[in-house]
């Protein structure tokens, strides 16, 4: 028995057997492996067109043989789908046991459940806020220590000479800290790399990404993001908050932890993919809310990314979780800053208050904003294309963990080098006011009482730099400084995203956009006659930041609301919306958003909102997998074991068929059972003992455990209709039947996701082993 369970629980191991022509499905316990197209679906195939069936068989066998000869291997590209990703079981498995449980629950029971859902959402918000608070405080403390050390060193060596030693010190400090962050990600939990938003997008789409919502992932993510930000990489800490929020939600709602191997015996009703996915939506929203201080933006983010199954109560609960999250963060940060109850830090990134006369905009500035949106779209497309090629290179060549760690260290060292060199050669000095907002003003070669203006951009955490760009007085920044900064930071950020470190891309995009936006504002002020009155550079910095971020991530609704909430001023809603729309339209003409690119490169079978246009000519028959491995309602254990341990096919759902007794008709569909259920049944030996002691001869009755009412579609159903049913209900398996309710094929996510609209019309992606 143990042998079988080991074999059948593989699910993501590489397929050693090679080409997929080998084992043919067993059916009815018949030990006839070479009987290729089986009678149950072959029955209907037989009836269709006798002549063609014969051709059909010959053609397929000849294909098979040629395939068996040469298993094709190609270098990794974006047009592949991986076999290792399965759908979540969002659709309830309504077997007799489940129905009995549901019928037993009283009205009070359902009310208690509803209340406990609210409690869980509140808990999710609270814990997410605490985690955000923790990250913020630790980053502030550690970054403060690092900048203090480097600043003292620079000041010492400015006088006596030997500044190259300061450079080396800065680079070594950066490398060491980032090395720590990269090691925990690359060696312990690779799924924690990147910002986590692509993985959560996939999870909300209904794909089971292995290990993405485990406690270990959370720990590695939090540690990784702290190391990345303190290590001075061109990254942000806001994106990883979304992933953290989702992990918290998945963990808290299940009432148990696989990493810690503890079961707290609570929330057992919620241990289903349906409830889990809904709570993860709440967790993601709480994460966005804690990151940006934008509760409504968080709700809309979950809506935009995950809504295939949306309802009012869910929205309400998610909003509750977001509000609790931002409030918790605000409260604890105010305590930390010794101003309890002041509540002025609603999020990890604080854009500051945009108020006053200078920040109002006029109607004639709207075309300027739209132009900036177009520029943002172009720059964003450039960023995405460069990052795409870099990521392909990394997947193909830099795939060993030690190489990934080394790459991260090199990036950190080069970031320090570039920053130092820029600061060193900058001649831009600004006077130090009494209420200066610079935490670590570097004087370097400026006159006394002045500080190096380039250092305010480079020698700071990115969040603070963004704030300075938004709110500093006109004249604080030299155009040349800003231009050089934009250029270098753009390439640094593009290089950094995709490393094996936990890092987000929101803040670097905002920073790049704020820099060139401010530059636009300064240029406008010099070009136009009374520009210095209305062309406030801080306002243009905000618009530039929104444009650049929209150009890179291509989020529309949620990003607009996040930016509006983060600036605390609804007045900016219209310009920001126009800018983001423009950036998206312009950028989409060239290339997709950054997260979508990374999802494609990971070969995830992502289902979009609708089936690709011009796919109406495809029917379920072309889409489905056929033939299908079916099981009888009362099946021999030996057959079940053989089916499950057949490593050449990756089936996780098996239609259950029943033979009408006494007749020769092919069996009809009566249910659907999952691999996981079969494994549990085998483990617990739920079968009746037959006369002979050999367990393989025992019979197992699947009636009670199978889903007796699986969704089916006739085989002539068009692809868009199948797609809509599959996506809207969050299905995992959809059985295709003929007009006599006999199983013809099975539609899974991978069958649907392989069609997408490419540059030359409808394209089909290929399946690969990854």
């Amino acid at each position, binding site marked *: 028995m143990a042998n079988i369970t080991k074999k059948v629980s593989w699910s993501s191991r590489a397929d050693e057997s090679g080409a997929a022509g080998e084992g043919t499905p067993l059916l009815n316990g018949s030990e006839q492996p070479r009987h290729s197209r089986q009678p149950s679906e072959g029955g209907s195939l037989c009836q269709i067109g006798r002549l063609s069936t014969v051709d059909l068989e010959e053609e397929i066998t000849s294909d098979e043989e040629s395939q068996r000869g040469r298993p094709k*291997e190609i270098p990794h590209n974006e047009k592949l789908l991986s076999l290792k990703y399965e759908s979540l079981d969002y659709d309830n498995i309504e077997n007799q046991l489940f129905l009995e449980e549901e019928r037993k629950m009283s009205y009070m029971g359902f009310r208690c459940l509803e209340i406990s859902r609210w409690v869980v959402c509140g808990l999710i918000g609270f814990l997410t806020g605490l985690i955000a608070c923790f990250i913020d405080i630790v980053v502030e403390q550690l970054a403060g220590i690092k900048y203090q050390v480097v600043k003292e060193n620079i000041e010492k060596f400015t006088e006596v000479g030997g500044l190259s030693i300061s450079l080396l010190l800065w680079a070594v400090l950066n490398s060491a800290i980032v090395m720590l962050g990269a090691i925990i990600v690359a060696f312990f939990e690779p799924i924690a790399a990147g910002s986590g938003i692509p993985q959560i997008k996939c999870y909300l789409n209904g794909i089971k990404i292995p290990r993405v919502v485990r406690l270990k992932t959370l720990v590695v993510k939090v540690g990784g993001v702290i190391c990345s930000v303190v290590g001075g990489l061109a990254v942000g800490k806001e994106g990883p908050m979304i992933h953290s929020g989702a992990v918290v939600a998945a963990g808290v709602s299940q009432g148990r932890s696989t990493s810690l191997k503890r079961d707290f015996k609570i929330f057992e009703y919620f241990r289903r993919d349906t409830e889990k996915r809904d709570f993860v939506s709440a967790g993601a929203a709480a994460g966005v809310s804690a990151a940006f201080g934008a509760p409504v933006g968080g709700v809309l983010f979950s809506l935009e990314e995950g809504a295939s199954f949306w309802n009012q109560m869910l929205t309400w609960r998610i909003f509750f979780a977001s509000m609790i999250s931002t409030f918790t963060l605000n409260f604890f940060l105010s305590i930390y800053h010794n101003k309890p109850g002041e509540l002025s830090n609603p999020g990890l990134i604080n854009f500051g208050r945009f108020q006053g006369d200078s920040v109002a905009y006029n109607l004639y500035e709207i075309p300027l904003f739209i132009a900036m949106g177009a520029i943002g779209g172009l720059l964003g497309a450039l960023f995405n294309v460069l990052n795409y090629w870099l990521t392909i290179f990394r997947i*193909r060549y830099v*795939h060993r963990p030690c190489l990934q760690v080394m790459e991260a260290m090199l990036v950190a060292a080069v970031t320090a080098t570039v920053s130092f*060199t820029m600061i060193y050669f900058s001649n831009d000095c600004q006077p130090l006011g009494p209420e200066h907002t610079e935490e670590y003003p570097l004087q370097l070669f400026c006159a006394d009482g002045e500080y190096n203006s380039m250092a305010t951009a480079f020698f700071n955490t990115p969040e603070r730099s963004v704030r300075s760009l938004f709110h500093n007085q006109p004249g604080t920044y030299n155009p040349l400084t800003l231009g050089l900064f934009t250029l270098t930071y753009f390439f640094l950020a593009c290089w950094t995203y995709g490393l094996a470190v936990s890092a987000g891309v929101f803040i670097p995009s905002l920073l790049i956009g704020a820099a060139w936006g401010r530059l636009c504002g300064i240029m406008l002020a010099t070009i136009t006659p009374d520009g210095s009155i209305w062309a406030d550079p801080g306002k243009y910095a905000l618009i530039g930041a929104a444009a650049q971020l929209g150009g890179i991530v291509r989020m529309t609704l949620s990003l607009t609301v996040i930016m509006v909430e983060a600036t605390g001023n609804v007045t900016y809603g219209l310009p920001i919306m126009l800018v983001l729309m423009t950036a998206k339209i312009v950028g989409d003409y060239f290339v997709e958003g950054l997260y979508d690119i990374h999802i494609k490169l990971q070969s995830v079978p992502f289902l979009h909102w609708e089936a690709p246009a011009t796919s109406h000519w495809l029917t379920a*028959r072309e889409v489905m997998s056929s033939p299908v491995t079916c099981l009888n309602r009362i099946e021999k254990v030996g057959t079940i074991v053989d089916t499950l341990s057949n490593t050449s096919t990756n089936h996780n759902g098996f239609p259950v068929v029943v033979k009408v007794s006494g007749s020769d008709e092919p069996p009809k569909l009566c249910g659907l059972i999952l691999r996981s259920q079969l494994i549990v049944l085998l483990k617990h030996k739920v079968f009746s003992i037959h006369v002979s002691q050999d367990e393989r001869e025992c019979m197992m009755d699947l009636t009670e455990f199978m889903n007796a009412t699986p969704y089916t579609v006739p085989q002539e159903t068009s692809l868009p209709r199948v797609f809509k049913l599959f996506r809207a209900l969050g299905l995992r398996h959809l059985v295709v039947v003929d007009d006599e309710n006999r199983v013809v094929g099975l539609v899974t996510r991978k069958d649907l996701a392989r069609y997408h609209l490419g540059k030359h019309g409808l394209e089909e992606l290929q399946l690969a082993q990854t």
Partner: protein
Amino acid sequence: MLLSFGVMRSREIPGCHMITTVRPVIAASWASYTNISVDQVGPGNVSCRDSLLHSDRLMLVFQLYNNLKNLWDSSGCKNCITAGLQSPTNDTLYFMATLHQTTSCFDKYQHGNHTELCKNCKNTYKDLNELYSRMEKNQTLCIDIEDAMNMTRKEWSKKFNCSFPREETVPVIAVSSFMLFLPIIFYLSSFLHSEQKKRKLIHPKRAKSYTSLMNIQDKQS
């Protein structure tokens, strides 16, 4: 009266001194101002305070007093002048003494080579700077001290050009080029030596399209 004071504002008349000269006059008027009780009511049932002070749109007395009060607060003069407004505090006197040392050092060497000046006056200037930073941290600064320090700093950096020159261009460039070169080597070596990750394609079993078959048969028949 105030304007003429402002015009005379120069290095020789420290700001706090000016303010303290004017302050008693205004303080006296404010005393009488606050003494006007709210309760006292004049003819027509209007409070005395309102009729005296808020009678015109400008509210001249009120505004003048407020502005001077703000000036006093923001200049921080209370850090430099003792409580009785009689004389500067000890800290201020010490600062002025150090400043005097520095300026006399400047005066001594200013006609010669500026590098001589930079070398000889460096220690006194450094002491002055450190004293200033300490006072800044303790927040015992007032506008007079800040102004004086600013002037001295401007002289030191701009007039005598004594701040640090950028000498180390070559080592910095060398180290940074080396650092920038490392990733190129890294990527080249991983491109040449790493095994390229390949993906094995899987060809799943599919049923032949019924509709296309039907179409073919229809077309043939």
